[in-house]
């Protein structure tokens, strides 16, 4: 996993609540291999109409957001299915940070596994940030995981929280499996005690 320390990029205001994983990547693309086209499935059916033409009305289709790599969205971002593809499509099209008032639980975990930072800010601050972006199209935002802050050109520095263990893993880009396997002796002795107390689990 790519470490995440600090990240600055054009931010796009995505004024939708309950952005679900079917919006992020429609189910029919789930069978696709993760190749260089993967990022193009992001928001596919919001971006394109039924005939495959780009919809002018969708924010990421605006010229000024072609380089956007941060999203500022509505509440419950990433709700729905457990598909990690919903994170892959973001990452593969360059997005490394999503700011929202809340996230779907599984999406939140998946994002952290892939070096995409989910930043939880109060609803009012997200609305404020989107208003700032609307007034200054193409403005950048900096997400600093070390300092746990988000700063935009409006001069305000907004703080966010993240579990210290997860923050540490993300800052260092640590591989969770490698980390877990260093605990193998503890895992094995746990399993022995656990199984001894539950003879019915012996399959």
């Amino acid at each position, binding site marked *: 996993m790519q470490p995440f320390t600090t990240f600055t990029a054009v931010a796009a205001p995505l004024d939708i609540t309950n952005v679900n994983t079917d919006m992020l990547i429609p189910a029919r693309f789930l069978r696709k291999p993760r190749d260089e086209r993967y990022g193009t499935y992001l928001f596919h059916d919001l971006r394109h109409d039924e005939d495959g033409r780009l919809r002018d009305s969708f924010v990421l289709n605006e010229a000024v957001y072609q380089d956007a790599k941060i999203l500022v969205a509505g509440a419950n971002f990433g709700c729905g299915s457990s598909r990690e593809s919903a994170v892959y499509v973001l990452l593969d099209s360059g997005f490394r940070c999503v700011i929202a008032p*809340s996230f779907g639980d599984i999406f939140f975990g998946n994002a952290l596994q892939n070096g995409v930072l989910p930043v939880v800010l109060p609803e009012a601050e997200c609305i404020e940030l989107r208003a700032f972006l609307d007034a200054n199209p193409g403005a950048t935002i900096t997400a600093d995981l070390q300092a746990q802050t988000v700063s935009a050109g409006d001069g305000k520095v907004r703080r966010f929280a993240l579990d210290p263990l997860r923050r540490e893993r993300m800052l260092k880009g640590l591989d969770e499996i490698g980390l877990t396997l260093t605990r193998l002796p503890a895992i094995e002795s746990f399993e022995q005690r656990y199984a001894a107390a539950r003879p019915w689990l012996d399959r």
Partner: protein
Amino acid sequence: MTAESPVALAPNAPSTLFEKIWNAHVIEQGSADDALLHVDQNFLHEGAFLAFAALRKEGRTVRRPKQHFAVADHYVPTLGREAGIAGVTDPEVRGLIDLLEQNAAWGGIDYAGIDDPRQGIVHVIGPELGLTHPGMVITCGDSHTSTHGAFGAFAFGMGASQVKQVLATQCLWQRKPKLLRITIDGTLAPGLSGKDVILAVIAQIGAAGATGHVIEYAGSTIRSMSMENRLTVCNMSIEAGGRAGMIRADDTTFDYLHGRPFAPKQQHWDAAVAYWRTLKTDEGAAFDREVRVDAGALVPMVTWGTSPGQGLPITGRVPDLATLSGDARRAVESALSYMGLKPGQAMDGLPVDRVFIGSCTNSRLDDIRAAAAVVRGRKAKIPAFVSPGSTQIKREAEAEGLDRVFIEAGIEWRASGCSMCVGTNGDLLQPGERSASTSNRNFEGRQGRGARTHLVSPAMAAAAAVTGTLTDVRRLLAAG
């Protein structure tokens, strides 16, 4: 805290069902809220190909293959199944099913393929085969893993990275969730089921109402529910944002499990049940939140919008924009426009194009019986099909003659799989078509581009099939 004995608890501290299971599975505490948990049982379906690919690329192996079970469900066709794998004509789809078989063989994992008698939707066959036990930590790369919580297990969905981790290590770092207890009391009126209960719960607390929480369902309504209906309730916990749903195991649970292929063998059965009986929320144990629902007052439910939280009694009307403003108004406007509905429109009598009875939410024998009871002696007015949740359920329903009830009504009786719940096998609605569906998600495009999904119970879906409209099933039941 580790498990010297199955019940490793601080003496005298009242604790919840969830805490008892959590504590029994902690291998190591990370930070205050984060622990390394042992996983008893993991389930795999075709979608696991990404996890397997990464695992193999990293040169890792499956650490405890016996604690995994793989089944083909998401991509299997529901027609032409007599031909087995040869009947899968789309090469991409066939490739995914083949890949699961190869990966399972590579990992030494038991696999139920397309023509295996154990085949079915992953969250249906886990319980059916007796792989799902009370007190377990259960995982699967699928959000509706919450279904298994109906057995008093902590069961949750996860993404590909975590699937890979469970394959490689048989444990997972988990953040301790908050706890929400939903107490549902009262007697359901005839014609209502677990689906109406959970749709009402989600309508009440919202699609993000349980985010960050594990839900424990309690109360007299839950206690008197069949295993099938409890599974339906827990299944949709994720649609309220919950990480998992759970129900304390009781005699209903034990009766369901007893004698199933992977249930505890007879010589261990009493010890297992004795342990399972200890897995209950103690008097005075604390929850972060409590919600109460009066089931006696419920009316059959139907969703009108594009989020499972946008549900109404069938006697109700779509929200009126006049009372709304800001974000809430915009959300309703956009849902109404996608669904082709007018503000204030009545749900009862809305014409529907197609009916789907299936999915891990509602495809078990109870569900099929409930639908058949409505269909019996009537004719379908619109295209409809039933996809039983497993090959075994299909056979059991056929043994009861239920297949004939549907076929005589002009409703298709198909094979088992995820089918039109997600459409990855090709069972899709046409753009603009409106469905009454017993599945769990009414998201834009979930059942096909431009498809309009109304989530309902099996009985309500059957009522829609025989009337061609969303209909209060109680009227049909009263008419006999």
